[in-house]
């Protein structure tokens, strides 16, 4: 009988991955955050692809930091926003709102993008109130 433990890199990776993946409690706990993560990731990829082209050294690291900031914000902000918005929209289960909110947070992007969006919204409301809808 062969009792030698696996030592090649693929076998070790497989064992580590298997131990991580086959934990049902971990899967249950991760489910809502996985939803937020992937919805936020799609949105963040969109806002990342909209940013000006940057080919200077370290551009990938800056892109990764941008994604980390935005997805981190989505992971922190999404659930409280969903809990706050759900009763106002008449949705009795906030989990239905988690993915769209995370996507929007990601798609808007960084703090400067939020600032631009808020300024645009303010101008839009002011124009609407004054009765001049032209942009």
């Amino acid at each position: 009988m062969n009792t030698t433990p696996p030592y090649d890199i693929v076998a070790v990776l497989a064992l580590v991955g298997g131990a991580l993946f086959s934990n049902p409690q971990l899967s249950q706990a991760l489910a809502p955050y996985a939803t937020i993560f992937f919805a936020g990731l799609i949105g963040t990829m969109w806002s990342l692809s909209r940013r000006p082209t940057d080919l200077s050294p370290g551009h990938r690291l800056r892109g990764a930091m941008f994604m980390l900031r935005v997805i981190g914000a989505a992971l922190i902000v999404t659930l409280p926003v969903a809990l706050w918005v759900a009763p106002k929209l008449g949705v009795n289960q906030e989990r239905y709102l988690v993915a769209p909110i995370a996507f929007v947070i990601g798609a808007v992007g960084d703090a400067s993008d939020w600032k631009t969006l808020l300024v645009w919204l303010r101008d839009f409301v002011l124009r609407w109130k004054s009765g001049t809808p032209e942009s």
Partner: protein
Amino acid sequence: MTTEHIYMIAAIDAALGVAVFFICFCRAVVSDAMVLRRVRLKFVLLGPASLAFGLSPLWGDWPGIINPLLLLAIIIGLLSETFQWHNGPPNSVKIDTMPNELKEHL
């Protein structure tokens, strides 16, 4: 298939999913608002989808032998156009630098 084989396929699948995501991330980093929306949409959807596909055992969906082969084919497809993206997005996908004969087909 033994448990070890299943774990091994899952690990290879996860590594390939991360690789596809990384390639899409790199394309997204060098893209800008002048790149055609349909081209950006390809990387935006393919990257996270491949990552989710590779990490599918996290929600109990174990990959078969075909899954890593599909991801490998996607990687080869993406790498085959790397030379075009080496210095940023190619002119053929940028609205401002696109040749007129291509604009006719938009």
